[in-house]
């Protein structure tokens, strides 16, 4: 019954989303104020019913209702309760419902926080969001219904994929989806502006917090995925340039460009049509990612079970959303030309180059991901494009970006007087260079060109970012949250670059066969395999090893890696034993039982690997602090800006 209620709620939600779309778009088009006002209650209603629908699916999982096909395919009575709930989004149909929930939540948030927007504009934004919502909900109802019944009911389920039976499943997809889907909001703002035919001065200030929040969540979501892959899959790798990973990274790069472009639009009213285009592209890449993951056109470890009819539906949906918005852009974009100049050396200029480099990076990833498909579609053969390509090619725009970042931060608007900064910047760069050369030699005993380049670039960004805030603090001047946020975010980039450089340059991996009592030495650490014994789990059987790590005779840690076989799917899984410290990870994963008590093991030394995710978290924190800046809080009195904007109260 509850299951049917869930399906019914989804149908009602779709109807309400259609109403939202209609009122939001047709209202302003016909000048009907009652319709325009009806968009908000429609979105609120839609959200309520999507929540009910999602709740019903959770209920079905929690109560092990194996008469539901999706539950039977992804759960099991022995599955611990925690995983029963996270299993809801463990496969295609459920994760789509999570998508719909995320979209509905963003939509209702826009509805609530849009009081300061002109009513026709707010209606259009909700209308566009409604169109996207309808598309998704129809996709679920027509091709991917999670509430489909299985009759007669299965005795027990096929269990959740063991790789997903991990706490990270509770956080990674929800965060990632919320960020990914959140790009729909700036998209809606952009399309609404195009429908309106003009872009208000305050537009950038309205949009910026939305983009930053979505960007922040996407940053954390991607970082969580990377961290999870690292400890769960046993290879010790943290990024594979898998098509699905690329699908989440491309919107991130474009969203980063968008945040920076919005800065120019907000401050000087320039780059309006470019910013609009970026907002459209960011969400388009999100949609494209959804297509790639679920249509079966690419081979990916993340890909959900595919079905050509699903692929066609999403492609059609892409045509409507992306094609429609880009056509609208082609038509209305030219009208948004702005006047305004800036010097060759100016903040605007630097931000233009920032955008260029970020977009080139995103384009390269897109080309690399789709090139095999292009060739295959033209019957020119089958190739693979993998990490060797992406690792090489990604550096080309990224290194200049890091270098320019250190300078551009200090450029002022319209005409940058960098002569004053020349001396401190040169000194900071030299300091970074020295660091980049000395530290590898001292700490790791060897030096490679690219290692120094990476370390120098990362350090350069950090010290350059700290320079002005430190100066201001020394003069007892205050720092706005915007500046603090920006500084932190850039420091995060530097930390990330350092982490990647050091790990890739100095990691050590060894595959060994160890008898109990035998040990292997790596970077001064002795890994001694003491023993192994069986450990039963709730829905798996495991063999656990005890590995003692010592250095110079002193014990550092004891690791307990496991090799598990999950009872239902009978697939073997590795749980690595990891010893964590701020500047290195020690990583042991079990391979196979070689008989006579011996085991094959992969032992790894990963220096500075935690900085990779630390950098991402600091970036996200910077974003968070930046949006708490006073500029974005609702103000009661009209400021002079509002007068300039035509008497409209300043928006949030």
């Amino acid at each position, binding site marked *: 019954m509850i299951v049917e209620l869930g399906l019914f709620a989804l149908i009602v939600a779709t109807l309400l989303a259609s109403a939202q779309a209609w009122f939001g778009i047709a209202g302003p088009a016909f000048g009907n104020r009652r319709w325009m006002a009806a968009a908000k209650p429609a979105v609120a209603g839609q959200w309520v019913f999507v929540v009910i629908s999602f709740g019903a699916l959770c209920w079905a999982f929690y109560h092990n209702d194996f008469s539901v096909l999706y539950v039977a395919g992804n759960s099991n009575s022995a599955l611990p309760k925690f995983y029963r709930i996270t299993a809801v989004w463990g496969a295609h149909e459920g994760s789509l419902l999570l998508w719909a929930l995320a979209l509905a939540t963003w939509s209702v948030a826009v509805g609530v926080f849009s009081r300061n927007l002109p009513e026709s504009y707010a209606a259009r934004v909700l209308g566009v969001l409604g169109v996207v919502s309808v598309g998704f909900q129809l996709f679920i109802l027509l091709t991917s219904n999670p509430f489909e019944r299985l009759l007669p009911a299965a005795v027990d389920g096929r269990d959740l994929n063991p*790789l997903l039976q991990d706490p990270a499943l509770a956080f990674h997809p929800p965060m990632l989806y919320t960020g990914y889907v959140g790009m729909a909001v700036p998209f809606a703002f952009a399309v609404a502006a195009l429908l309106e035919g003009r872009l208000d001065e305050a537009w950038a200030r309205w949009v910026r917090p939305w983009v930053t929040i979505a960007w922040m969540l996407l940053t954390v979501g991607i970082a969580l995925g990377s961290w999870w892959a690292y400890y769960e*899959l*046993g*290879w010790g790798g943290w990024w594979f340039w898998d098509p699905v990973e690329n699908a989440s990274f491309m919107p991130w790069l474009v969203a980063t460009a968008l945040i920076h472009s919005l800065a120019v639009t907000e401050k000087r009213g320039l780059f309006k049509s470019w910013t609009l285009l970026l907002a459209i592209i960011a969400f388009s890449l999100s949609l494209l990612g959804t297509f790639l993951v679920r249509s079966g056109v690419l*081979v*990916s*470890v993340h890909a959900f079970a595919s079905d050509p009819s699903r692929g066609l539906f999403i492609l059609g949906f892409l045509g409507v959303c992306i094609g429609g918005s880009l056509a609208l852009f082609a038509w209305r974009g030219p009208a948004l030309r702005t*006047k*305004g*100049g*800036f*010097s*060759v050396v100016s903040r*605007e*200029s630097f931000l*233009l*180059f920032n955008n*260029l480099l970020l*977009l*080139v990076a995103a*384009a*390269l990833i897109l080309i*690399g991901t789709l*090139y095999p498909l292009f*060739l295959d579609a033209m019957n*020119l*053969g*089958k*190739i*693979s*494009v*993998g*990490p*060797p*390509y992406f690792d090489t*090619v990604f550096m*080309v*725009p990224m290194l200049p970006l890091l270098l320019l970042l250190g300078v551009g*931060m*200090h*450029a*002022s*608007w*319209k*005409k940058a*007087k960098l002569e004053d900064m020349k001396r401190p910047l040169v000194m900071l760069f030299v300091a970074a260079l020295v660091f980049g050369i000395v530290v590898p030699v001292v700490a790791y005993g060897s030096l490679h060109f690219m290692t120094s380049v990476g370390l120098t670039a990362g350090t350069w960004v950090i010290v350059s970012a700290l320079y002005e805030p430190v100066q201001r603090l020394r003069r007892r001047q205050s720092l*706005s949250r915007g*500046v603090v946020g920006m500084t932190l975010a850039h420091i995060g980039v530097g930390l990330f670059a350092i982490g990647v450089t050091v790990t890739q340059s100095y990691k050590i991996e*060894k*595959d060994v*066969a160890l008898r109990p009592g035998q040990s292997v030495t790596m970077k001064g650490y002795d890994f001694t395999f003491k023993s192994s014994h069986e450990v039963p789990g709730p829905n798996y059987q495991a063999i656990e090893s005890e590995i003692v790590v010592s250095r110079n005779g002193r014990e550092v840690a004891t690791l307990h890696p496991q090799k598990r076989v999950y009872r239902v799917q009978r*697939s*073997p899984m*590795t749980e690595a034993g990891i010893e964590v410290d701020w500047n290195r990870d020690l990583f042991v*994963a079990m*391979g*196979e039982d070689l*008989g006579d008590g011996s085991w*094959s*093991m992969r032992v790894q030394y990963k220096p500075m690997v935690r900085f990779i995710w630390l950098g991402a978290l600091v970036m996200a924190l910077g974003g968070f602090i930046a949006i708490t800046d006073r500029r974005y809080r609702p103000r009661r009195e009209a400021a002079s800006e509002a007068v300039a904007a035509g008497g409209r109260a300043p928006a949030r």
Partner: protein
Amino acid sequence: MTRILRTLLLALTLAWAGGALAIDTERAFDDPALQARYDNITRELRCLVCQNETIADSNATLARDLRREVREMIASGQTDDQIRDFMIARYGDFVLYRPRMTRMNFLLWAAPVLLLAFGAFAVVRVVRRRAAEAALEPEGPEGGQS
């Protein structure tokens, strides 16, 4: 003999493991340079069975067999190119994770430079135009970085 059979059977049962880590149980090369070559090559070859993994990481039987081939070829003195050619002759370009520089893949490898050049050209044009505009504008109280 039984040990070989056992390993074989184990390998066969794990052939469809998918997602499980594969660890090379063969002895490493005594010469670290050869081992480094082996590591590099196996990390650039795609497993044809578990197509999301390299043959270095894949548990599939075919991946083990291919690792054995690579190992034997290195030991017998073949160059990296010869090893890659061996794989391509049997499985096509699909087996290489690093696309070869051929006429077909030219765009792929030239993309970074082409995109940067084209993009930089566009940006420079915009900057020039805006700088000309700025020169015509009256100097006002500008600057600041927020």
